[in-house]
């Protein structure tokens, strides 16, 4: 019977130890990270998502976008995320502290989306919105050969009643995708939210900890030598 008590006790101790070591310790440090106040800008970072984007985050979550897209930029030299233009810097823990559901993802069947808002911002029509609508409506329009499925169900083909909607997107689509005369294709509220979310994705602020990267010895020595030479 003693050995059984030992078994139960041992199991509990092992569980408690791993729980403490992996979760509790980190909850006390990483779990308590706060926003950084930048006196220069008079703002705290990370900034909260705009309301529409926060609702779009739920659309991103429920459509399972994270099955193919990560949201974590790896540091330069570890993979080539930087060379792919997926972010100016690697992601740090503080980037995520305001997000209700952190979807860093584990598969890269599509590109990393952590800074997709930065990539499309101000480009390709209406701050990138049009690009995203076309892409969601039919990925082949913007990215021929892509294996991303179409999200046509986020758009509505409806009869034009009175004035055509300013949001209508059929003008962006090729002839083959045009609705019948008198009809228009408009993004649903969910599509608008999703695109707002995607456009809000940009980790531009350089936190001090983002500089905590290893610099190879030869580089620092080289730098020191150069400084010495200047003197």
């Amino acid at each position, binding site marked *: 019977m003693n050995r059984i008590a030992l078994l139960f006790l041992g199991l509990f101790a092992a569980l408690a130890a791993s729980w403490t*070591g992996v979760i509790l310790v980190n909850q006390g440090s990483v779990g308590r990270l706060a926003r950084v106040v930048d006196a220069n800008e008079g703002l705290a970072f990370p900034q909260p998502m705009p309301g529409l984007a926060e609702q779009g985050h739920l659309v991103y979550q429920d459509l399972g976008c994270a099955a193919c897209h990560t949201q974590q930029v790896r540091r330069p030299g570890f993979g*080539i995320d930087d*060379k792919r233009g997926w972010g100016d810097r690697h992601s740090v823990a503080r*980037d995520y502290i305001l997000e209700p*559901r952190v979807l*860093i993802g584990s598969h890269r069947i599509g590109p990393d989306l952590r800074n997709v808002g930065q990539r499309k911002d101000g480009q390709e029509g209406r701050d990138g919105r049009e690009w995203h609508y076309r892409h969601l409506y039919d990925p082949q329009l913007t990215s021929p050969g892509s*294996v*991303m*499925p179409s999200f046509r169900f986020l758009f509505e083909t409806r009869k034009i009643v009175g004035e055509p909607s300013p949001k209508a997107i059929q003008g962006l689509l090729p002839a083959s995708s045009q609705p019948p005369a008198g009809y228009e294709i408009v993004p649903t509220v969910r599509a608008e939210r999703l695109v707002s979310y995607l456009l809000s994705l940009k980790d531009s602020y350089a936190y001090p900890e983002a500089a905590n990267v290893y610099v190879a010895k030869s580089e620092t020595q080289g730098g020191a030598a150069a400084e010495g030479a200047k003197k």
Partner: protein
Amino acid sequence: MASPSSQTSSVGVEGASVDASVRLPGLYFAAAAAVWLVVGTALSVIAAFKLHSPAFLADCEWLTYGRVRAAESAVLTYGWGFNAAFAIVIWLMARLAQAEVRRPVTLVVSGVFWNLGVLLGSVGILGGHGTAVEGLEFPAYVNVILFAAYAWIAIWALLTFRARRSPHVFISQWYLVLALLWFPWVFSLAHLLLVVDPVKGVMQPLVQTWYAHSLFLFWFGGVGVAALYYLAAKLTGRSIAHYHLSTLGFWLLVIFGAWAGPARLVGAPVPAWVVSLGIAMSMVLLVVVCVWAFNLVPTLARAAAVVRQEASYRFVAVGVVALLVAQVASVLLSFRGVAELLQFTFVQSALTQLNHYGFFSMVAFGTLYVMVPRITGRSWPVPSLVGFHFWSSLLGCLASVVALSIAGYKQGVGLNRLPMGDGAVPTPLIDVLQSIQPYLFTQTSAMVLLVAGHVAFLVNLGWMAAGCCSSCLPAPSSLPNASKAA
């Protein structure tokens, strides 16, 4: 009583009455598992097909890739995996305690709730209520049902363990107790910290990997290894080789295993030390793998010539190989140099396939093929389907793992390496994905093969259950234990 020299697993008189008492819950969980298995692998086929033909079913929001993938994973884990594990736990616990199952109907009631929860959860995921947390995809309300249903099954199993007759606790029982105690802890903690009141920032992925890793290593690993030890001894009629080492492996797994989860977060924005610690701890699992190998391989190899033709033996042998390969591979894949190239790629999917299918599912098949004839007192109605199931599972799993590994390697090189030459720019992602299309197509074919095998399994099992029920129901007296309990 079978003669001991027959080398096949014989059943004593006591065993027969224990087996009969497992009939109702055992058959229920086995049948539920088989149904979910077919559903889950059908979803796998859809998901796999979408990877090379994105237009397939694209207009149906409920079947968009992200949701199908999440539902597939949840159905296979909580539908197939847990039901099969419950059947194995009940049977092994009862047999090793040499105690008849009391109140089998309550187990079935719990099981009904469990399966309702899984059904509700899978429909919820397809309807867009999923949590998007890998390994815990079900909507919040489902987890409560699952926990309540699980609690009774686990309490029952632990009570049976307490009522055991033999003073010796066989190594399978250790692993079963490990599985039964560990799961409710990690499940409830993960539910609280991820779904009810989510922790902040990257604590979420950290809790998620801790949970997903524990779920696999301790629940599925625990039940699977318990079944392996039991079947290795029973199928060969010999004791476990180097048996005294088995507890060493057990304790090393328990003490070090739970820390290894964060090793999957290499390169992620979690503190570097957590990942380094996980990698260091996962190295110790190599010793555990050695212990499993020393225990199981010689035991099974010794009787290979005699029982090689038995279906369950074949499943178990494949399961052992997959377990050892997958554990070593997961240690290797967590090393930073390897993860830099292969993280986020289909190689990870291949490893999951090897773990969940090659190891756990194969062992579960092997156990069910031994267990169901014992508890029903019947033989498989269509023996040829058993062989078909084995070969389709083996070939399907092998093809899938190989195809995904090659696809993942090519994907990793394309994703994470610059092409040769000066001023080279990264290969566009679309080109990388296009270049692995043939392997993804192979993966789809492999999944179709698996579905075929699983349908064969379901047909065989359903036929047997139907025959069993029709013979039992008119004359309840033929089922003395069930009637006594009711």
